[in-house]
């Protein structure tokens, strides 16, 4: 019981730790946050995995955006015809 209380005071919950992992990528953590996060991830395999997963997700998103940019992306003729019709309607 006491052990659990000390844990709560000294480290983050998994929810908080995973939040800090994302916060870290956006802004600086305070010294206390840094210490609590490293203590938590030292003990928690699932949060360690979360940090890895989060990074992989980011890299995969970047891959996806790059791949999409390299494809030939054209609008259909139908779309263009419809758009031109809308423009003509506006000038009626």
């Amino acid at each position, binding site marked *: 019981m006491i052990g659990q209380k000390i844990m709560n005071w000294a480290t983050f919950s998994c929810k*908080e730790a995973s939040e800090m992992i994302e916060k870290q990528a*956006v*802004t600086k953590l305070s010294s206390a946050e840094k210490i609590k996060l490293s203590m938590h991830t030292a003990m928690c395999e*699932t949060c360690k995995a*979360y940090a890895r997963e989060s990074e992989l*997700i980011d890299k995969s998103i970047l891959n996806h955006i790059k*791949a999409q940019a390299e494809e030939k*992306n054209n609008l259909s003729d139908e779309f263009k015809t419809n758009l*031109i019709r809308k423009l003509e309607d506006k000038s009626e």
Partner: protein
Amino acid sequence: MSEIKEVSSMVSDWVHEYSDHLYSWALYKTSSKVIAEDLVQETFLSAFQSHSNYAGKSTPKTWLTAILNNKILDYYRKKTKEGTTPISQTYFDERGSWKNQISESLWSQQDHLLDNPDFNATLAECMGNLPEKWRLSVLAKYTLEKKPDEICQELQITKSNYWQMIHRAKLQLKECLDKNWV
């Protein structure tokens, strides 16, 4: 030909000439075909309405791209500020511990995951299932090509708002991958 008809025919010519380019750009910025189409359409309709602002000082392509960029940023701003999105499920118990422990999520330990087109396709599909607000929050880093501080400024959100959205998005993406990628 009346003046308005002349404008309409000029803008129609621009559709033929520039819409594919604008579409590619919008697609790169939003990673969604449907949204990119909408934004391109809005761009031409705006161009038609405000043609008098086009002084011919820049090329039509530059002018249209500037309109489109404003539309893209407006879209991000509007969507990332939309009210709270209900969370489909909670990922943590009442003490804040993961409900699903490590044994259920081992994909991050697979080798060469990012070279696997199937993995990237699965993730893209998972991205498509995200509420728009969260989808944009994880895209912004790459598509707006700015530092976090500047992104928050552009989108008029706080930094904590920004990383909390990313956290939500990542949790849902993780869950989707846990389920659909083994």
